[in-house]
C-alpha cells in the first residue's frame, strides 16, 4: 500500500507550510485545529520560532464547536487577537476536521476583514497534503491579496542610483523548509539582479506589494511556481526556474567523501528545483548519470522540466526506485531505504526536521 510507512517520515504538512511561508511578513496566521498543528510546526518545522517573533496561533477547536458549527467563537477569538496585536494581515488555514465539516473559511475571512479592517484571507489547506502545497498556495494567496499594480516601479528596497542598470527580479519559493534556514546565502547568488521582493524571506509586506514592478520572476523552489504563473498572467512578468548553486552546496558534496565515477547512476531525492541544480553540477563535473526523484506533491510543468523527473508516492515507491541507484543524494533519513548504496547526505528540514540541524549549521557556517 502506498499509504503505509514502516520507517520513513512524511514531509512537513501543508498547514506548517502556510505558516512558514507567511512567517516574516508581520501578519497573523491562525490554524483552525484542536491542538498539535502549532506544536508540531514550531518544534520540527520552524527554525525561527525561538528567536524571531511571529503571530502564529491555533484555534483550539473543541468537539462541541466542530459538531455544532460554532464559528462564532473562532471569529471572536480572531478579532480579539487582531485587536491586541494589530497584524498587517490575517491568514487562516485548516486542519482535517474543519475541512470535513465544511467550514466556510472564505466567508469567515471576509467577515473578519470587514470587522477588523485588516486584510484577511484563507489559504486553502486541510492538513492532508505536504508543505509544498501549503507554501505554494500561501504564496499565491499572498500575491493575489497584496500585489496590485500601483505607483511607480521603483522597488521599496533599492535606491535609485543602484538599480538603474540591473534587471529587477522577484525570488519566489524561499522558506527555511527548503533552504535550511539561510536565505541570505541563496539571495546573494542573485547579485546581478535588483531584488524587488523575495517570497517570503528577508522581505517586508511592503516589498511584496511591489512585486508587480519586477522584470522577471525567478522560481527558486517548486513552491514559487504557482505564484510565478499567476504574475505572468496578471502582470506579464516572465519567469525562469532554477536555483544558483553555492559554494556551500559544492562543499557538502565534496565533504561527503563519496567517490562519483563517470556513468554512475546518481539519484537525487528532494525538492525538485534544488535537486536539478545539484544534478546539473554533478552531471557536468563528474559525467555521472543523474536522475531526479521528486517525493513532493508539487511538480513543475513539463515545459519547465529540463531534466527527467520521477515522482514517488510514499515509502514503498521510493524504496523500489532507489534500488537502481549507485549513489543516492538526499536527506540522511533516506539511508533507511538505501541499503548498500553510496550516500551523499543533504539534510532537508522539511523531511528530517531539526534532527540534522547541527550538521546544516556546520556547513552553512
Amino acid at each position, binding site marked *: 500500500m502506498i499509504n503505509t510507512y514502516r520507517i520513513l517520515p512524511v514531509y512537513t504538512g501543508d498547514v506548517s507550510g502556510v505558516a512558514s511561508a507567511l512567517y516574516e511578513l508581520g501578519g497573523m496566521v491562525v490554524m483552525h485545529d*484542536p491542538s498539535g498543528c502549532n506544536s508540531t510546526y514550531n518544534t520540527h518545522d520552524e527554525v525561527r520560532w525561538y528567536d524571531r517573533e511571529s503571530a502564529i*496561533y491555533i484555534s483550539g477547536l473543541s468537539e462541541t464547536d466542530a459538531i455544532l458549527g460554532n464559528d462564532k467563537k473562532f471569529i471572536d477569538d480572531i478579532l480579539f487577537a487582531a485587536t491586541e496585536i494589530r497584524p498587517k494581515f490575517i491568514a487562516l488555514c485548516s486542519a482535517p476536521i474543519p475541512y470535513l465539516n465544511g467550514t466556510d473559511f472564505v466567508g469567515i475571512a471576509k467577515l473578519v476583514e470587514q470587522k477588523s479592517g485588516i486584510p484577511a484571507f484563507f489559504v486553502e489547506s486541510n492538513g492532508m497534503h505536504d508543505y509544498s502545497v501549503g507554501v505554494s498556495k500561501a504564496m499565491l494567496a499572498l500575491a493575489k491579496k497584496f500585489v496590485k499594480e500601483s505607483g511607480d516601479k521603483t522597488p521599496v528596497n533599492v535606491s535609485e542610483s543602484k538599480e538603474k542598470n540591473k534587471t529587477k527580479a522577484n525570488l519566489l519559493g524561499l522558506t527555511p523548509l527548503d533552504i535550511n534556514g539561510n536565505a541570505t546565502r541563496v539571495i546573494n547568488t542573485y547579485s546581478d539582479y535588483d531584488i524587488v521582493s523575495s517570497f517570503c524571506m528577508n522581505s517586508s509586506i511592503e516589498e511584496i506589494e511591489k512585486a508587480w514592478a519586477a522584470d522577471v520572476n525567478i522560481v527558486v523552489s517548486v513552491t514559487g511556481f504557482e505564484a510565478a504563473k499567476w504574475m505572468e498572467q496578471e502582470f506579464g512578468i516572465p519567469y525562469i526556474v532554477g536555483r544558483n548553486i553555492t559554494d556551500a552546496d559544492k562543499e557538502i558534496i565534496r565533504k561527503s567523501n563519496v567517490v562519483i565515477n563517470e556513468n554512475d547512476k546518481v539519484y537525487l531525492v528532494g525538492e525538485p528545483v534544488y535537486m536539478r541544480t545539484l544534478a546539473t553540477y554533478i552531471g557536468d563535473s563528474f559525467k555521472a548519470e543523474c536522475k531526479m526523484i521528486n517525493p513532493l506533491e508539487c511538480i513543475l510543468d513539463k515545459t519547465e522540466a529540463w531534466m527527467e523527473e520521477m515522482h514517488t508516492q510514499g515509502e514503498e515507491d521510493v524504496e523500489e526506485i532507489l534500488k537502481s541507484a549507485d549513489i543516492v543524494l538526499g536527506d540522511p533519513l533516506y539511508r533507511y531505504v538505501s541499503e548498500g548504496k553510496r550516500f551523499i547526505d543533504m539534510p532537508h528540514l522539511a523531511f528530517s526536521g*531539526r534532527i540534522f540541524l547541527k550538521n546544516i549549521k556546520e556547513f552553512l557556517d
Partner: protein
Amino acid sequence: MQTTDYEIAIKDSDFPKPFKNGLEYNASVHGTWNIVHIGLQMPEAIQVYVCAKNCMRGVILTAAEMNASDRFSFVIINEENMISENIDDVTIEGVCDVIEKRKNSGCYPRAIQLFTVCAHHFLGSDYNRIYGTLESRYPDIDFYRCYMDPIMQKKGLTPDQKLRRAMLEKLKVCEPKENTAAILGSDFPLDEHSCLMRFLKENDIDVRQNKTCKTYDDFISMSEAKLFIATYPAAKAGVEKAAKVLGRDFMYMPSNFDLEETENQMRALVEYLGISSELKTDTREIMNNRLKERLISLLNELGKTEIVIDYTVHPRPLGLAKMLLEHGFNVTKIYIDAINPEEEKAYEWIKENRPDIILAATIHVNRRFKKETDRSEKLLAIGQKAAYFEDTPHFVNMVAGFGLYGIDGMIAMAELMEEAFLNEKDTRDIVPRKGLGCESCV
C-alpha cells in the same frame, strides 16, 4: 506589579480557569512528554498511527528524535479515504500492511499501540470492527486502543490520560501475589530514596514499575501485584480502572508538597498493609527536621531572589509555591493556564495569604511577544516554561515531578533549586528538546 489579561494577581482570579479561552500560542518549550514518549515505555511494543500528513509529522519526528523510528509505523489518510472510501477499511488494511512489512523485515511486533484520530470519531468509526478484525487476523499480537484525538480533550480524559489507561488494558487476570505492589502510569519511576519506596522495601513489598520492566512479559506481569498505586494525577483514571477490572486494591498517592497530605497518604498505606507506621531508618520527626533545615539553608543562600514557577515542573505547582512561601521564599509568579482541581486548597491559601502573587498564562496570544529580558538581578525559575518566559539560565530543569515523592521529594526539590541558583544552564539549547529524560538526538 501591573496586571494584564494574561498576568493577573491571584486575588482577582477565578478557580480553576483564571484566563479566558482564545487563540493559543505554543511556546518553544517541549520537555514534557507526549503520547509517543509515554507509550514507548512499554517494552517491545510498537506504535502505529492512522492520520493525515500534518497530524502525523509531530509524532513521527518525536519518535525519530528519541531514536525510536524502528518502533513507529503509520498509515496516511487523505480526502479520498475519508470521503469516498471507508476509513475503517483503510485503517484495517493499512495496519495489516504495516505488520506484513515488519514480518518481512524480521521485526514482527508483540504488541501494537494503534492510534486512531479525530477524523475516526467524526466519521463514526466502528472501533470494535477495526480491533476485532485485527485481533482475529493476528491473534498473537496485543492491540491497544489508543487515541490521538485532541478535539476530545476539552471534555473527559485527554489523549495522554486515555493512553495511560489503554496501556493497562491487557494486564492479565490472574491470582495476585502477596506482598507485591505496582506503581503504574507515571512518566518517571518513583524515586528509590523516597519515603514511599523505602517504606515499601523495608516491609519486603516487591515493587514493580513501568520503567523497570525490561520485556513485554515483565510489563504484563505487573498484573500480579496485589496493590496498584498511582502517584501521578494523569495516571489515576487508568490505574483505578485496571485495579477494578482485575480485582486489585487501589491507592492514589499523588506526589505533593504538603506534609499533612503526605502523612495522610502514608497513614492510609500503613493501615492497608497492617504494619509498622514508621520507617526503620528514619522517623517522621527526623525527616521533618531535615526538610526544615534544608529549606532554611536554601533560604539563607537565596535570600530575596525572585522565584517563578511553572505548571510543567510538577502536577502541584501551587502546592510547591505554598510550601516555599510558608518558609519565607520570594515566589512572585506562577505560569499556569488552568488549575488542577487537586490544588484548590493551595490556591485558596495563596489567595488569602499572598493575594498579589501573579498567575501568568502561557498560551495567551500576547504571550508571544512578552518574553522578559534585560534583568539585572538573578531570577530562579522552577520549570522550563518559567525559564523560557523569564529568559533565565538559572532554572530547575524538571518535568512532571520527576518521580519525587514525600518529604524526600521536597528535600530533593530544594537541592535542585540550589543547584539551579548556583549554576547556569543553556536554556536555548535545553528547553526546545522534546521529552526530558528520554533519549534525544537533536
